[in-house]
């Protein structure tokens, strides 16, 4: 930073140009064009959702309208039909259980491993870290066939365990926690704790864990969402009688329901949980995405 300031100071500014600088800088107030584009984007992003709400609360005739804007009064009737067609509450519960356990497990193991990679010294550390980074780019989802064979041998197909177990850890989680902890925890603090007689695990609990908390929350949030969103693997290992929200929702489409209002009512219903999460933790989601990027 200081280097760039001396750089610009080396160029004596002419007053006229100095004024121009403030006008063209990136931090300047944007014009109508920028706001216009943003409003257009907002409409494009929000309208398909709103359209779903409108159609879901109307009848099949609503769908025929060119640009329906006002919701009708049939939403709960349509939603009730959708809930009758699929085991909605069971699916919701299953998704919640699966996503929570996966998030908890990924956060725990990633924090432990990330802390070790960031702050402890051991033989083979750098090699193993490169291995972790390398595997991040590998699409492990393509191992679904042996994974399915494995789950069937365990007799787990049809049960939630079959969805949970393959997702207990992720390479990304380890990488993310390591990147965060490497900057956040000063080495002196760890050494001080060690000198005070704390063993490694106590040091981790007293120094590493408190510092890791913000990153753990973000990792947990995104892991939860990823598990909640997953479709392919639950579709393979779970039965239609014991589905996740996503596989249940897809049954609406593949069933005999040509009633678009009912299908869309299901889609809207299934979006509500994440919408609540979005309203409650939207800022965290945004800062999570933006932090992950800076570090990644």
């Amino acid at each position, binding site marked *: 930073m200081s280097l760039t300031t001396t750089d610009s100071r080396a160029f004596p500014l002419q007053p006229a140009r100095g004024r121009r600088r403030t006008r063209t800088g990136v931090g300047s107030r944007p014009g109508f064009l920028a706001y216009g584009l943003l409003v257009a984007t907002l409409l494009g992003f929000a309208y398909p959702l709103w359209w779903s709400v409108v159609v879901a609360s109307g009848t099949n005739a609503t769908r025929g309208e060119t640009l329906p804007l006002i919701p009708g009064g049939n939403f709960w009737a349509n939603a009730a039909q959708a809930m009758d067609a699929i085991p909605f509450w069971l699916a919701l519960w299953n998704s919640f259980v699966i996503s929570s356990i996966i998030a908890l497990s990924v956060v725990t193991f990633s924090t432990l491993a990330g802390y070790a990679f960031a702050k402890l010294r051991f033989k083979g550390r750098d090699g193993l870290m490169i291995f972790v980074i390398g595997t991040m780019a590998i699409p492990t989802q393509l191992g679904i066939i042996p994974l399915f*064979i494995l789950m069937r041998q365990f007799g787990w197909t049809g049960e939630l365990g079959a969805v949970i177990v393959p997702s207990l850890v992720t390479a990304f989680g380890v990488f993310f926690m390591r990147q965060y902890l490497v900057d956040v925890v000063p080495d002196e603090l760890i050494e001080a704790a060690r000198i005070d007689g704390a063993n490694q695990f106590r040091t981790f609990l007293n120094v590493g864990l408190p510092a890791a908390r913000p990153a753990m929350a973000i990792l947990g949030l995104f892991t939860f969402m990823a598990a909640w969103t997953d*479709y*392919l693997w639950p579709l393979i290992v779970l039965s239609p009688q014991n589905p996740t929200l996503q596989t249940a*929702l897809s049954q609406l489409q593949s069933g005999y329901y040509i009633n678009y209002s009912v299908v869309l009512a299901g889609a809207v219903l299934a979006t509500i949980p994440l919408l609540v999460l979005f309203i409650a933790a*939207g800022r965290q989601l945004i800062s999570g995405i933006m932090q992950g990027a800076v570090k990644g």
Partner: protein
Amino acid sequence: MSSTLKAAETAPSARPSTRPKLSLVQRLSWFDVKASPYLYISPFFILFGLLGLFPLVYTLVVSLHDWELLQGQGDFVGFENFAATLQDRFFWNSIFNTLSIFILSTVPQITVALVLAAILDHNLKGKTFWRMSVLLPYIVTPVAVALIFSNIFQEESGLANNLLGLIGVEPIEWKRETWASHVAIATMVNWRWTGYNALILLAAMQSVPRDLHESAAIDGAGGVRRFFSITIPTIRPTLIFVIITATIGGLQIFAEPRLFDVSTAGGVGGSDRQFQTTVLYLWEMAFFRQDFGRASAIAWLLFLLIVGIGLINFFISKRIASADGRALKKKTTQKKGSSA
């Protein structure tokens, strides 16, 4: 290691009177220091090896055998499954569809995300509101997205055709025509991911030093020029990251084509497989046709394709970005030279 060990050693030497007891403590502490890192990383490596890497490698074993869903492992057949797959016109069809949808989704997505990020990088009123509204589609799951958009792209009185009708365009057969269906599916992907990627790119843009922009503006570079010769080169690592993740995800699209039109072919990607992606074909081969051997061969070929395209993307984006970067570097070194 050495510094922590030293720290552990200096503590006991300060109180020599209790030496025998301390040497045990010392040895314990040595073990603690040596072993705990491995203890902390082992859950990850054990679980990841068992549930991530082992299945991937074992896919190769399955692909070299006759292997049916119900009968299980059969004879060793060498590369027969690969040969059969490579001669399978449905396989190549799925590769074509995957690449077509991939390009239709990645290119507009990253372009628009860059523009959006550049706008959001301004000193906006209601910053958080705009960022949240950009992220809104991200919370709709792919299955829900597929349900919503398969309705929007319904031939008869779907929203898309209704809107096109307003400007006098004849209804498009979104679910029957190859290109139209690819555009529709790419639209779902773009809708969900553009805002997400814009936020990632925004974060990178905010770390570009403002002085760099200012001095370029003084030199007379306009907004567009600065975007291409300052912003893009400086956010290069993030841009590569976004492109690579979009590649890995984009080549594995499943929910959207699976649910786009289930009425005609039971959800295997259209009546003529006109929008059947490779993962969808893999799923059909494994769980409809129950041929695990062939499905595993498809999985490995797709794996190679993803890694290959990932590498190509990596080198292209590196080159494009560094070509600009060199120009920038030249400029800054010149400046430094002249200021010295």
